């Protein structure tokens, strides 16, 4: 594993409209190959952290660096390029485009990135096949189950071979079986070397998929624990000390 951090949040604070901080002076480092789960109750700031890393939002203070890129300094065009080359995103409610077929949904980021058509199609076909949804390529998302839709979302997130997969409550809108399906998928992806950062309040998801769990409370890191995926948070694994925690 490369020692250079993939994600580096340094003393990041985010306030909305001058209110209390949604994220309060947190520092966090994620290395390639890690699967990090950010846990916390509603309003703890976990989605804000995800948005900051995804370049969807900017910190009020502090720096956000992903794969050597200062995300907090990117202009809109730079953010767009960053999102289509460095990260893939999976959302709680899938955010698939209902008017596009499954295949077209998956192809979209590659097409926006200007990937050659043949290459993009081959990559999409490979992902659909790997994720077990190849038979739905010509279907519209509305006809798929929740789990299948989330697999499509994951395929779309991975088509540009991003260094980082961000997942926001990926099992939040799924039934138990589908949730398990997605958990397995994420674990497998991480096992194949994909760095994953997921935000959830689902402890089971964190325990099954993550190699490290960061708990947020009121915008601050309450704990940061490394563990083996599937072993459960803090189960016999020594705490991984973050900068914030060190302070």
């Amino acid at each position, binding site marked *: 594993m490369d020692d250079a951090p993939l994600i580096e949040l340094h003393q990041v604070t985010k306030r909305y409209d001058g209110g209390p901080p949604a994220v309060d002076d947190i520092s966090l480092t994620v290395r390639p190959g890690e699967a990090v789960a950010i846990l916390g109750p509603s309003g703890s700031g976990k989605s804000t952290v995800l*948005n900051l890393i*995804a370049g*969807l*939002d900017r910190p009020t203070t502090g720096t956000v660096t992903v794969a050597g890129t200062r995300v907090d300094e990117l202009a*809109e*065009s730079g*953010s*767009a*390029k960053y*999102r*289509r*080359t460095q990260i893939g*995103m999976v*959302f709680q409610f899938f*955010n*698939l*485009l*209902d*008017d*596009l*077929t499954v295949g*077209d949904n998956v*192809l*979209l*980021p590659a*097409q*926006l*990135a200007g990937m050659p*058509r043949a290459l993009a199609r081959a990559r999409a076909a490979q992902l659909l096949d790997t994720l077990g949804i190849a038979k739905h390529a010509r279907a*519209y998302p*509305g006809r798929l189950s929740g789990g299948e839709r989330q697999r499509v979302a994951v395929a*779309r997130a991975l088509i*540009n071979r991003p260094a980082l997969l961000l997942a926001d409550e990926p099992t939040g809108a799924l039934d138990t079986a589908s949730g398990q399906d997605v958990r397995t998928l994420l674990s497998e992806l991480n096992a194949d070397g994909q760095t994953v950062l997921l935000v959830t309040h689902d402890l089971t998801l964190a325990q099954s998929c993550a190699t490290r769990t960061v708990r947020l409370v009121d915008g601050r890191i309450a704990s940061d624990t490394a563990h083996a995926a599937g072993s459960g948070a803090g189960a016999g694994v020594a705490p991984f000390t973050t900068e914030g925690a060190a302070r």
Partner: protein
Amino acid sequence: MSSHGMRLGKSRGGALGRVVRAGVGRRRVQTVVIVLSTMMAVTSTVLAGALLVASRAPFDHAFNTERGAHLSVLADGSKATSAQLAASAHVQGVTAASGPYQQIIAEHGTPSGGDFPGIGLPPLLIVGRATPGGPVDDLALTQGRWAATPGEIVLSTSYFGPRGSVGMTLTFPDLPGKPVLTVVGIARSVTGTGDAWVQPSQIPALTQPGTVPGIQMLYRFANAGTDTQVTADRDAVAAALPHGAVTGSLSWLSAKQDAERSTAPFVPFIVAFGVLGLIMSVIIIGNVVSGAVGASLRRIGILKALGFTPAQIVRAYITQALIPSAVGIALGVVLGNIFAKPLLSNAEFAYGTVSLSVATWIDIAAPCAAVVLVALTAFAPALRAGRLRTVEAIAVGRSPTVGRGRIARHLLGRVPLPRAVSLGLGSPFARPARTLAVAASVVFGATALTFALGLVSSFNDVQAGQNRNGTADVAVDIGATSDGGEVVHVGAKGVNQPAANPSAVAAAIAAQPGTRSYYGTGGVELAVSGLSGTTQVRVLQGAAAVDSVPLISGSWFTAPGQAVVPTRFLQETGTSIGSTITLTDNGVLIPVRIVGEVFDLRSRNGELITDARTLSAVDHVDRISGFEIHLSPGVDRASYISALNAKLHPVYADAQDAAADRGGSTLPFFEGMIAILTAMLTTVAGLAVLNAAVLETRERVHDLGVYKAVGMSPRQTIAMVLSSVALVGLCAGVIGVPIGIALHSYVVPVMAHTAGTNLPHAYIAVYRGAEMVLLALGGLVIAIVGALLPAGWAAKTRTATALRTE
């Protein structure tokens, strides 16, 4: 109803007002679009209506405003007294009278200043009037002031047109003491009762010794609507005066006929623009209001869930459309009146009338019609909203119905275009009704654009054709001709001035470096078989004359005995190309064969144009009274004229810039009007696109968030939004151009026929291939410009915010 129920009702009524206010304020862009659209529609309606009315009855308007004279009677001052003339004001049927005024005809005046200093003037009818006002023929001063003392003169606009100017002087060398009058004002008489006016005390000094000034009396009658009535009125006045005292009269009907002949041709194009504006108003208001209501369906559902009745919903949404519309309508009326003012001022000049203003009924009818139109247009979608079931209303309206246009989108995804572009191109298929409304608006915008450009081209061609001898660079007037012709004297009468020799003038022109080609012109009044009175026969000399008058059909004359004639001549004589007519010249019959139809509006009754040899071969009189010269490329016109005049003045001829004759054209006025109407119609079309793009962007804001989340850049976002209207704009442009051309091809000949002429084909076929392509792209430009703002907003939309939008 119980008191509780009443309270609830009142509470809901208040809530309704708040809902309406909130709706208006919340959708600011749509509110602004409604305001602007209705404003533009009403502005163009008021403007078109005002101009239509102004163009239809400018003479009547001016005649009523200025209390024009139904009859102007000239009496011989030696046979009738001023008291007798004054008494004629009491003749039965006379409702008002002005005068008596002394009048004289001063010949051979010479101006200093103005456009042609030193050139002799045509005879000048000068009337002695103490004031410009009066119960009849209330003169309108357009420049300067009224003549207050002897030595001052006020010129008529109809005599000098734009060339007269305050401060110039007129010298009358034929008169004792060679009086010099200073022009202190320019005034207009609606029926042309004089060429100039002076104080009555000035008249004796302008009267030739041994002559008596005539006496002018102006009347308005109870009945003077027809020639017969005016003739009867004239006879009644004549009967009240000593026998033979009346030596001339002028009926207001002839002035009216002249005025309408110059304005009527423009009515068809104003009507065309009015109709275009009206149709676009309907489309834009329907589009905007339907869009506004359609975009609020979810809100409607929530309101219904809160207890609003269907009727309240309908009222709320009609009112919501009416409030910004009312603002736009009010602004439109104001703007329409403001814009109309300068245009009508130009029209006043162009039409020779005064104080035109927007008719009050237009200021009332246009906004009332617009309010009714908005209410009716809003009613249908509002009724749909009112009838929606609550759950459906909540569910509908967040985004286009899923499924529409999927096939098109899927197929477009296969097209080798940037994905952002293909996504945009697929969007119109999701909202076919809205797309059609936008397309219709752009079609009409492109139609207006095409029609307008065609009109301007045709007007320019017509104007060029109408100008004296077409496109000559320099015109030479010979001071006097040996016989007949329209003469402009050079120098004062009384000076021993020989007639210029056309041959000597022609030789000077030919020898002048810079002359490319030239031809001689002249004219004479002759009797033509089949026509009463005399007809202007224009003679041309030289091969270069072939280009002097635009040919409509047939061919140019190639030998003596052939002639070309304008359409009106053919109409009035019932002849056609190939017919032979007979001219009578001093009792000699000259057969002339008509070989071509030309575009020539100069003569009221239609003139006949023939080779100078047609007449000279019979009567051996040289009727050439001027020359038209085309210069070689690159020759400086002023230097050429100066050099040529150095040779011509000694032989009593004078070269002038022919372009000066083209001044005072009504063309700039009509071009200005066309520009304003076109700008408004295309702006309205652009607003329709803007509104649709805003609605589309808002409805698809969540999708937009997804696109951005997966890496769509701001530039790609802009490309997507612009692409979503580009195809519609392009198609609409392609459709609008042939419609505009068809409209132009229909309207221009109608205008020409109203003026009593056909047009050369080239004046109608003004569209070139490249122009048509550019015009077709006009629809694309309208669409792109209309969508630029929403595209910018879409690009700036924050991804996180868009993703959170339901």
